[in-house]
């Protein structure tokens, strides 16, 4: 048989109907639902008298609107209505919901893997562009709009044109102190904010194999920031070890059988992709974005570019507009950029491993004067685990606020936002204009780099820090 990629294998396995020249009707194995992009979909079902076809393959959580302080008393009436609407819809249509009181509540892309709902070979969708996160397990996972949410609720399928495939090969070994976030920010900086448009990306190479599941999730999470439909990583022993004993994963002999099937999914030796790009791992440094899209990033020892550095008239204009919004002078050293806020959170970087990495740098230090720093764990499970390890104390003693879980300041739909004109070192995924608040200026970084910025008040090369900093 011709060698195949994991993408081709999952695709073929899920085609309910495949006619030449038409989109295929694809079966969906797991549909994750949250409060912002689902109310109009449930309303559509109600109006047409349709049930949810497979409530057992549907799982809901509340995350975008949830306050991270006093989470059970939502004061914003419209937010509360959206939360209440999801609660009522799940009850009416028989969908399991990790509501605000549940110990399983958290950001949709954090709880899916945590509960073992996310598994290799599955097709996974959610009305949220960061659904690509689940690709870390060797699943084909992508974000959809609300019309498609309704379509999946009603039919458990979607019409999709077969994707093009692209291998993103991270060649060689990563330098010490360089993280998954730096890999994905470097890939997007190198190849551009829409290089993945129309493709499903598969990340390969020694540097990727050496990552934990949580780190792989950070990479796949930001595939959408490269414009890709999805991004994934072939499953291996690291994947299987992570999944063992999680709630929705089979146990005993059935688990062993599953693992054997999952092993077969990995891309075959010699399989061909439609496109291939390579980035040498040893050129990747800790990254900081300076602009208003995720490709506008540079290594910690770099400088803010000049508009004239743009390769085309359009790009020159894009750089100019970004610098105006960010209030940055061309030629400024990245290490000279001072911030007023530090946000450690989001579906990109708020897992227990992220908190541990940041805590290593924070331990025994203090947040610099004039900085508001905040930790928002990705889920209530992550929060409890961190508290068990005493990480909350490390952060609190340093001057961080320690919050409940949610999407929080990544997009500022709940009460957490960055005030106009102020600057934030953020472990989230988007530095768009106004993303963290109207007029807010976002610099995307890894958890370690965010921790360094919190202590020094400006960006620093965390590879060169001693364990304890006198400030």
């Amino acid at each position, binding site marked *: 048989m011709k060698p195949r990629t994991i993408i081709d294998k999952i695709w073929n*396995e899920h085609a*309910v*109907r495949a006619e030449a*020249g*038409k*989109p295929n*009707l694809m*079966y969906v*194995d797991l549909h994750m639902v949250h409060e*912002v*992009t689902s*109310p*109009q979909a449930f*309303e559509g079902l109600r109006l047409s008298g*349709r049930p949810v*076809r497979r409530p057992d*393959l549907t799982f809901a959580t509340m995350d*975008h*609107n949830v306050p991270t302080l006093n989470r059970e008393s939502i004061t*914003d009436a*419209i937010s509360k*209505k*959206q939360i209440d*609407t999801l609660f009522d819809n799940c009850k009416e249509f028989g969908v399991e919901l990790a509501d605000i009181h549940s110990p399983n509540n958290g950001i949709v892309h954090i709880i899916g893997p945590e509960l073992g709902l996310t598994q290799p070979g599955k097709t996974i969708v959610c*009305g*949220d*562009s960061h659904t690509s996160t689940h690709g870390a397990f060797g699943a084909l996972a992508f*974000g*959809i*709009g*609300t*019309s*498609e949410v*309704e*379509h999946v609720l*009603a*039919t*458990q*399928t979607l*019409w999709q*044109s077969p994707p093009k495939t692209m291998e993103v090969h991270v060649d060689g070994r990563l330098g010490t102190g360089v993280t998954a976030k730096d890999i994905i920010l470097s890939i997007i900086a190198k190849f551009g*904010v*829409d290089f993945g*448009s*129309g493709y499903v990306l598969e990340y390969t190479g020694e540097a990727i194999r050496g990552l934990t599941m949580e780190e792989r999730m950070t990479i796949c999470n930001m595939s*959408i920031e490269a*414009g890709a439909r999805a991004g994934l990583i072939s499953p291996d022993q690291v994947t299987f070890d992570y999944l063992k004993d999680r709630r929705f994963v089979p146990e005993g002999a059935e688990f062993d059988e599953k693992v054997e099937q999952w092993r077969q999914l990995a891309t075959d030796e010699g399989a061909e992709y439609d496109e291939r790009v390579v980035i040498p791992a040893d050129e990747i440094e800790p990254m900081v974005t300076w602009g208003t*899209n995720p490709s506008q990033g540079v290594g910690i020892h770099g400088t803010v570019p000049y508009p004239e550095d743009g390769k085309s008239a*359009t790009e020159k204009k*894009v750089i100019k*507009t970004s610098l105006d919004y960010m209030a940055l002078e061309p030629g400024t050293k990245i290490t000279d950029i001072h911030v007023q806020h530090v946000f450690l959170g989001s579906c990109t970087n708020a897992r227990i491993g992220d908190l541990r990495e940041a805590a290593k740098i924070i331990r025994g230090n203090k947040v610099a004067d004039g900085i508001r720093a905040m930790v928002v764990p990705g889920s209530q499970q992550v929060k409890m685990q961190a508290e068990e390890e005493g990480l909350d104390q490390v952060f609190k003693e340093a001057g961080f606020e320690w919050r409940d879980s949610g999407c929080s300041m990544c*997009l*500022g*739909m709940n009460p957490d936002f960055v005030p106009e004109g102020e600057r934030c070192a953020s472990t989230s995924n*988007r530095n*768009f*204009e*106004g*993303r963290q608040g*109207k007029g807010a200026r976002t610099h995307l970084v890894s958890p370690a780099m965010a921790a360094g910025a919190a202590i020094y008040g400006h960006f620093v090369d965390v590879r060169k820090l001693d364990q304890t900093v006198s400030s």
Partner: protein
Amino acid sequence: MEALTVHEGNTAVLERANVDTDQIIPKQFLKRVERTGFGQFLFFDWRFKSDGEEDPSFELNYPSAANASILIADHNFGSGSSREHAPWALQDYGFRVIIAPSYSDIFYNNCVKNGILPVRLPEDQVYELMQNGNDKEYHLTVDLQNQQISDKDADFQATFEIDPYWKEMLLNGWDEISITLQYEEDIEAYEKRVKV
């Protein structure tokens, strides 16, 4: 969904690349549980000054863009968040057609499912349209059946590509779920076969 066959209308030119859905409809307006009424919030942070007045320097507020129903934009339009509130807002404001060199995949799908036609044209043609419509009213006729765009004097003429499946959906204004449910037997057979 409203069918779209031939559309004639004024254009608005947005000479910006990578316009993301956070700009098209900022997050503070995503809390509604309805599909309607989002037009008033379209491009909110660009369209209005902090005192709530319209910002005359924003392209959609130019007199030449009055009553525009065709939006011309640069590369990678609609990137970022999957929020369908973006096409809902564009449509509610009055747009039926968008013309750009490229779109984000999710945004493109969200448009066609709401009866908005996203036309892909080569960069040089889009830039020509931008020149033509930049500072004056500029009307275009978009013929989906024949996949053609032209202006009044036929100075500009172009053809465009579109997936035949989406074309048929838009031309007929079909509800996709009803179509899919005609294949319910196939879905059931699939579920039995793979034991899902």
